[in-house]
């Protein structure tokens, strides 16, 4: 992954976030959030928007 410079922020059904090289097709089950940039920019963005790393189904069950 280190060969890539440009990334996009992607998210899956459990609202887990990740980053993905802009040059590659996004894998099935993942959707770009629209945010993109360098690795660091994407990571900073995720640090802001993703507040609880637990999967969505667990968070819903716990009511958080």
């Amino acid at each position: 992954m280190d060969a890539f410079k440009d990334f996009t922020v992607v998210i899956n059904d459990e609202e887990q976030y990740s980053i993905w090289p802009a040059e590659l097709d996004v894998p099935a089950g993942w959707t770009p959030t629209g945010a993109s940039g360098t690795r660091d920019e994407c990571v900073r963005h995720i640090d802001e928007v993703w507040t609880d790393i637990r999967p969505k189904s667990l968070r819903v069950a716990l009511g958080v």
Partner: protein
Amino acid sequence: MNSRIAPVSGLQRGLWFLDRWNPGSVAYTVPWVFTFDAPVDPDVLEQSLAQVIDRHEALRTTFSFGPDGPQQTVHENVRIPLRRTDHTALDEEMHAGFDLTIGPLLRATLVSGTTLILIVHHIVWDGWSAGVFERELAESYTAAIEGREPVLPELTTQYADYATEQAAEVYDDHLEYWREQLSGAPSRLAVPTDRDRPAQQDFTGDTREFELPLGTAAQVQDLAGAQDATPFIVQLAAFAALMNRYTGAEDLVVGTPVTTRDRPELADLVGYFVNIVPLRLRVDRAATFRELVEHVRDTAFDAYAYLDVPFDVVVDTLALERSAQHAPLVQVVFGTHAEDAAPLRFGPATATRQVHHNGTSKFDLTWSTFDDGELRGEVEYSTGLFEVSTVDRMTGHWRTLLAAVLSDPDRPLWKIELDVESAPALVETRPRCLHESFENAADRFPDRPALTYEGQSTSYAELDARANRLAHALIAAGVRHGDRVGLLLDRTDAIVVSILAVLKTGAAYVPVDPAAPDDRAAFVFGDTDVRLVVTDQGDVGPWPLFDLSAQRETIVAQPSSRPGVPVRPDDLAYLIFTSGSTGKPKGVAVAHEHVGRLMDSGQDHFAFAETDVWTLFHSYAFDWTVWELWGALHHGGRLVVVPYLVSRSPEGFADLLAEQAVTCLCLTPSALRQLELTLRSASRALPDLRWVMLGGEALDPAVVRRWFDLGLSARLCNLYGITETTVHVTTHDLTGADGFERSLIGSPMPHLAAHVLDDWLRPCPVGVPGELYIAGGALADGYWGRPGLTAQRFVPTSGGRLYRTGDVARRLAGGGMEYVGRCDSQVKIRGFRIELGEIEHALGAHSSVDSCVVTVHDDRLAAYVTGPVPTYPELRAFLAQSLPEHMIPATVTVLDKLPVTVNGKIDRKALPAPSAGSVSSPNAYVAPSTPGERLLTEVWADVLGVPDIGVHDNFFHLGGDSIRAVHLAGKLRDHGWALTLPDLFAAPTPATLAPSLRPCAVERAPAVPFDGLSEMDCQALPDDVVDAYPMAAMQVGMIYHMELSGDAGGYHNVNSYRVSGRLDEHALRAAVAGVMARHPVLRTSLDVFTYRQPLQLVHAEAPTPVEVDDLCGLPGAAQQQAVRAVFDTHCATRFDLRTAPLFRVTAQRLAEDTFQLTIAEHHSILDGWSFTSLLTEILERHAELLADRFAPLALPPASTYRDFVAAEQAAADSETSQRFWRERLTGASGALWSDGAGSAEATAEIPRTVEQLLPDAPAQLQAIAEAAGVPIKAAALAAHVLALHRITGRDRLTTGLSVNGRLEERNGTEAYGLFLNTVPLVLDLTTSTGLDLVRELHEAEVALLPHRRVPFAQLARYMTGTRLEACFAFLRFHALGRLDGSATSIVDDRIGCEPDMRYEPTNFALGVALVQDPSSDRILLAVDHLRSLVPDDVADAYVSAYTEALAALAAARTPLISVQ
């Protein structure tokens, strides 16, 4: 003979050196086969061959090491006989090398008139030469058939002219170019190998062909055209891209062969005009193939301006790194070749040609393509490194890559997929919560012990109840489903109760080890926002505490029922913090289901049961405890809590394992090593231990080896794992140390999948290291409170997530994976990318290194080791055998033990600075201290012209190069020491090399065929003679004797053996033919009259004298009769000495597993040792060919009979020897029974033979030898002397002693010939008796040894009368010992190795031989006597006297001489 001496060309120098490196190797021979569609005329072909050889000096050249370095000698009138045979000889031919000093360096064999096999040494030949040669041979042949003069190009120059010119060339500007070009170039292109590289490059190899799709050639041509490049450039670029994929190297050197025939007059010459050009290529995977082609084109075209400087000179001049393990600088070669497969006309016949492969590989890989309009490929590869399946995979990948880049040259290289990876099927389970599985076990096994702590056990029911009470108490204290609860507990049973209790509340536990630094707890509990902290540490911190001792009353008051909180499998079970190499610790959030899937997989693999006993050995802040806990508590097993102090005491822990009968043990390799050391010193059998599960660190093969040396029954399983993927990922079971030469981690557990990906997220080919990514149902949710970090490490894949491990691994061809190291332990030093794990692996292989770790300190590699480590230079030299220079640590620091973390892993951060411990500078001068070191430093100073050589100075760093290395070996040989070049390259300092020095015999000048013959004699020799030299004195003596005696016994020997084993006619014939090929004497004829001196003529070949009869089914008597008849015929049929061969073989099959082998030979070519060796070699080769029709023939012995003849001549001329014998023999008479007055000088008489087994003789001889302190044969000789004394009544007597004149040199005992001499011993028995006599005889024999080769004919002149009537021989033919117990062995119920029938006429009145079987030691006394001189009763009396003398000597001490 006229000859011309020239220097070798620089190109040849490289090949000459390689031949010195591996003398006689077939790596640089070219087997080339012509197949004719109709038979060709052998004589015309031979004559045509002669014409071509006359035209090309290269084919008449030999090589030697002259005063100015290697030189070539061009010979005139070189005959290269066309060997004619009817059996397929290719295999034999291919496996025979050349002696460059002797030549000729071309061999030709015509098989059945339709197949011509040419074997030629590359030093006089190249691919272009093949075209020249075949055109000229075809034209010469056709012209001869058509009765015209051949039309051949005029040759205006010869190879020696080119070589002379080239040798004078100065390459300064060329070398400057290469110096710049190769500055900082990697010394090694490390294509991943299937096997560890052997300590010494061995050149064994194979060739694999591969196809390329039709049309590829045209596509290559098109792209080449578009890029102003050549098809070669395009293909090389694609190859470089492949090498980049396989090695990860972005800077790589590929060798490519180029021709240096740069002038028209060289185009028609045969000779070696090939240079290897080291092209240094940079491959950027982000670039397009088109860009790569341009780069390769520019690099190659620049280099072409400097291609004349021989590769070897580049390597030497630039002092590039040398290694015994691989070729310098270039290990991988790529070349393209045009192919003209058009048939060639030989008169009315046409020939097709093919180059064959001879089982060698010059480099690691030589990748070639051939273009005849379409492309095909060939890979010559080292079989010591690669499996054929790996080569096939590589060629498949190249095909894929080539197709991809040709169809779209503008795509970035990284986008090309070499493999289509199929997603592995994962086992998906939906397990229960962890505490529920425990409750389930508690319900099934309520009374079984669940927990043992300090001798107290707690049952399942009780443990469940305790956990329930605590859970209720925690809920009462405010803990809720979804919370985090901190644990800060000593290693007691409270840990287990607390974990269960927290899980039962629906919260996740967050463990902190009280042994960790104080701020750790504050950080961890703060980071996870714990509801409260359960502790037994008292009042310890700002967070809400639940103090177990303070709350004891409250807890006990709680109900023991299960709290029944509805916990979901995806609820978090724990948050365990990992440190990582950088940054803050991070909490890995793991859910119940993640652990549940792991435990389900584990159950499948390890079959956990209620009978298992586990230890809670590790800190519960390390996720191994998750495995230990549930491995026991989900299955009714017992968990033994190991108190912290016991876990730190190897002895205490070993005791605990034995006392508690532990069955399942989890350890880090460091802890296993500790345990192994303890068990070694205080042995415990640990019979209950069934699994030792290892993880947490790379497993070093040395640790495994030492463990299995203990001989315990437990199996090892190497588990690779990461907290983020829930404890374990892969398993690799080990039942022994074999096969674990590298850190194998096996395959993923069924709930996970592993991918090895490159930096572009593309799968790496099998064998190629890349980063390991894990997918599946046990990936943690992420890092608690660290979304950005989670997003970076848990990355998308189709339908799920992949965890990026940061570990480097490679997939193995046979399945499974190898752990290579951490991504961040890949360091870059001086531009080299270095894997620290690889250095640790090499260091750990040293027997004195117990454990080791390598780090980088101040930009230098620093090693830390424990164990009885040798000095730095020794360690450095050891590493240099397997690592390139840039990977050798600058310092080695010895520690008592390596620091470990609280989790039991090596703590790199706690290593001291490398100044501590025993560090020594590699550069300090150390004076030689041993004789070997002194000799080496002196000789080096001489060869290198550098004074004051220290014992740690590297030969190659002080200006040594390949030729100086040969010089060095030569100088050492002059001092009497042998040194092989691979030894020097592996150990290039005096200190490391000194132990490999071995004494050697001083080498003679190499034998040259026809050497020493007059020009006239040479001219007169028949055409098929390949060598001729004078006869030995003994041979001449025999022949004159035969002439004088009218044949008499004729020195004609026949021996007939009963052999057990299967007889195969074809194999026997091939065996005899092979033996004849190896031993010139078996192709030798003798000629006394034609030449100026008696000569023996070695013929290129002679008929194979084998006859085979089948007597199976005949009655026994008839078989006996037939065998006798053959024996008699052989006795009666004398040899014509002027016709080779002078031996014959008849085999008669008696039964399926028995045959009779009768061999007749003329004594002039074989002595007893040679004859028995011949017999053995035929039978062995026969057996070998039965097993493998293509078994290669061993090389001929280096020592030859020719060498002996020269040595004999020298002895005859030696004044010292003459004086020695004159003093002893003057006035002596060898007559015992005749009057010695020259009666019938030759007796025409067949002797009588008496043979008697002496059952007591072996023990008697042994006793005498021991009492007298002499070898057995001196004892045997003493008995003979005493027996002679008895039957003759003489006190003074002379007997002959049969001595062996073989040369003391390498292979000296393997040469066949007549090495015998008979020397007279003059004895006076009045002065010595008993053991004194034995000793004196031994001393006399030792004294005569240096003079034993003076021919008897000459000795006889000193005596009065030339008769010598008695002779004694002690025979113990070691070769026969090899047959004992082999598939074919001699059937002899007397001593085990004697023939059934023997006809060996003697010319002594009394010839005595004491024959000892080398396997059984049994002894036969064989006496041949001429009845006219020694009557039967005297001979019989001799036998009795001999037996009695032996007995008396063995009883010793009694007076032995009592004349009757």
